[in-house]
Each structure stands twice: as C-alpha cells, then as structure tokens.
C-alpha cells in the first residue's frame, strides 16, 4: 500500500469516525428557542464551594490525624481526600460544560458572532477536556506525585475568590441583558 493510498484510507476512516460522533445524540440535547432560558439555572453550581475544598485539603488536619490516629485512619483520610479531589474535578467539569452550553446557545442565536472568540472557546474546551481526563486518570491510579499541598490550597483559594466574584458579575450582566431583550420584545421590536 503506497503512502498516498494509506493517507486517503486514514482520512476517510477519520471522517467516518467524526460522522458517527456527530450523529450521536449529545447528553445535554437541549436547544432553547430563545436566549431567555439561559438565566433559568445557575451558571456555576460547584465552583463557588472552593473554601470547603480548601478545608478538605488542609495539611494540618492530615498531619494531626496521621500523628494521633492509626495508620488505618490515615489511609482512610487519604482515600477520602482522593474522593474529594475527584468530586472537585467532576464539579469543575460540570461547571465548565454548563458555561460552554450557554455560550454555544448564545452564539447560535446571535445574528453576528466573532470568529476569534468562538475559536478561543473551542480550544479552551479541547484543553480543558484533555487536562481533565489526564488529571482524573492520574488521581484514579493513585499516582499523584507528592509535593506541596499548601501551594495548591493557596491557588484554589485565590482562583476561587476571583471566580466567585466574576460569576456574580456575569449573572448580573446576563440578567440585565435578558431583561433588556424582554423589554424590546414586549415592545414589538425586532431583535434580529
């Protein structure tokens, strides 16, 4: 088989795989008729609970339990921490997907979209999914390397606070925009 022929076979195989994927019904198969339903549910449900996550990763707590309790207890705590870490990851993914869904509906219902923003969002989604799957696999395999929990705790705290503030801002912005759209609609104005 020549290289040219092989490349065509691979290309067609790739196309058929994407075709199969495209024809599968997505899990969140909903397409609201209007953008008004965007604000119907909270955009981020989990990412705002960073303080609790931070607490569960507390180094002091672990050392205290490890020194006072048995090895069995330390092992149980370790298991619990892994579970929390996995839950935290899953929650981040759910929030990310919620935001993506809203962004896609907004883009589909907009008369003009900005290619740069759409491509940025697409690549963000690709990066996020790759990182999510890798991190999850490593956590499940218990292969997470040892290091400085304190640094991570700080990061979660800092980013969490920024994200919380940003989400409040976004919800207010979305509510204002949807209100404005409703007003124009009620007035018989053509939004398109």
């Amino acid at each position: 088989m020549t290289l040219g022929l092989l490349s065509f076979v691979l290309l067609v195989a790739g196309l058929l795989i994407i075709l199969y994927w495209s024809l599968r019904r997505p899990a969140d198969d909903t397409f609201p008729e209007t953008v008004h339903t965007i604000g119907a549910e909270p955009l981020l449900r989990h990412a705002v609970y960073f303080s609790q996550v931070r607490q569960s990763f507390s180094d002091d707590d672990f050392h205290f339990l490890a020194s006072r309790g048995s090895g069995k207890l330390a092992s149980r705590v370790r298991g619990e921490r892994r579970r929390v870490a996995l839950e935290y990851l899953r929650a981040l993914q759910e929030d990310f997907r919620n935001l993506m869904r809203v962004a896609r509906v907004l883009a589909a219902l907009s008369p003009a979209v900005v290619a740069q923003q759409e491509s940025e969002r697409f690549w963000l989604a690709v990066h996020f999914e790759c990182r999510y799957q890798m991190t999850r696999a490593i956590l499940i395999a218990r292969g997470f390397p040892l290091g400085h929990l304190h640094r991570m705790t700080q990061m979660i705290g800092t980013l969490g606070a920024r994200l919380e503030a940003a989400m409040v801002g976004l919800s207010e912005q979305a509510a204002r925009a949807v209100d404005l759209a409703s007003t124009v609609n009620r007035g018989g104005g053509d939004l398109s």
Partner: protein
Amino acid sequence: MPPAETIQNVLWTTSLALQIVLIVILFHRRNHRAYPFFTAYIALGVAQSMILALVYRWWGFTAFRSFQVAWLSQSLVLAARASAVAELCRKVLGIYRGIWALAIRLLAVIALIVVVYACYVSSWRWKVTVLEADRATELAIASIIVVLLAFSRYYRVPITTTDRLIAIGLCIYSSSYVINNSVDVKIPQEYYSYWNLLIEAVYITSLAIWTKAFWSSALEKVEQPRLVEPSLYQELSPAINLRLRMLNEQLLAFWRTKVPHL
C-alpha cells in the same frame, strides 16, 4: 457472460430504478421545491445512466468518445452533487445567521485544504487528472458534510431527519468513492470489474437512505429561531470566555500542583 458483469447489470438496473423512484417521490411530495439542487442531482444521475447506456451500446466501453462522454457527464453530476451539498449546508445552518457566516468560511477553507492535499498527494499525473480531480472533489464533499454535522452538534443546532439522512447518504457515497478511486488504479485488470461492484452497491445504499428520507408524506419543519440583539453576544461572550479561561486555570493549577497524601 462473466458473473461480475451480470451482477454489475443487476446493480446498475437496481440503482436506476431507485433513482427513478426517488425522483417520483420528490416530485409527488413536492419536495423538489424545498430541495431543488438535490432533485437536480438525482435527475442528472438518471440522465447520465441512460446516456451512458446508449453511448456504450453505440461506441463500446473502451472507445475514446465513450470516455469523453462519461467524464463530461460525470463532471456535471459532480457539480450538481456539490450544489446539493451547498443547499444542505444552507438549509441546516442558514437560519442561524451568526454561526452560518462563521461556518461558510470554515467550510470553504476546509474544502480548499482538502482539494490542495488531494492534488499534492496525487502529484498531478496528467493521465489520470480527471480521476484525481474527481477524487479531490468527493473528498472535499465528504469533509464538508462531516464538518457541517460536527459544527451543528457543537452548537446544538437541530437537524431534521430528512437533512440528516441526505447528509449520511452523501457522506457514505463520497467516502467510498474516494477509497474506490484510490484503489482503482492499483487493482489488476482481472479484478477491476469486481472492485467496481462495491461502489455501485454503496450508491444503491445511499439511494435507499435518500428514499427513506423523503418517504414520509410531510417534511419536518425547523422552527425559525428568534435571534437576539447583537449587543447581547458582544457583552456576554467575552465575559463567558473569561470564566472558561479561569476554570481552565483552576484545572491547570490542580494539574501542576503536587499534592501529598492523596
């Protein structure tokens, strides 16, 4: 008569019969108004089959004039096919003005890349130029259909069953055609007629899919979406992207930071 030739005739008759049935359905249900280019494509396919049957009977299969007529008619059918694909793209995404403007640029770029790649790989051997141009176009058609469906899935754009089935039929046939053309020139003469049966069988499958698509009496209607004002997108989209970036950062922090006691 060798068995391959008998099977070829049976398949050819079946495909012609199916094409005629499809044309009748399209006109009877008045779907030719909604799908004018697709109807033209099928009608040209019927015309091509009939013309080629006569040409081969008069001049024989290997005559140069037969070759010329065959490729000329093929180029017309191919152009009609490409128009049917463009029609499908417009039907699926056309009502969503914002993403349609984005999609049309993306599809054009992809088609161009695929055609350039196909030409590059085939090194432009002039003896088989028509065959290779044909393959490049079919590959571009298959790619456009796949990207269209992926794009629609990404933006959760609803697609009617009819459009979905048309897309599947077009994509399956174009993909098979690319493989068929790629292998064609490398196949020994004695197996050539057997190999060609495959593409005929795939075409019949596509025709069956399209017949199913138009079989039901009424076409599904996609509700016209109520578009929002442009400022809503301009205001919210960058803000959402910022939050997505932050979530990504959050995950990256998790990924980079070394966590003990897990």
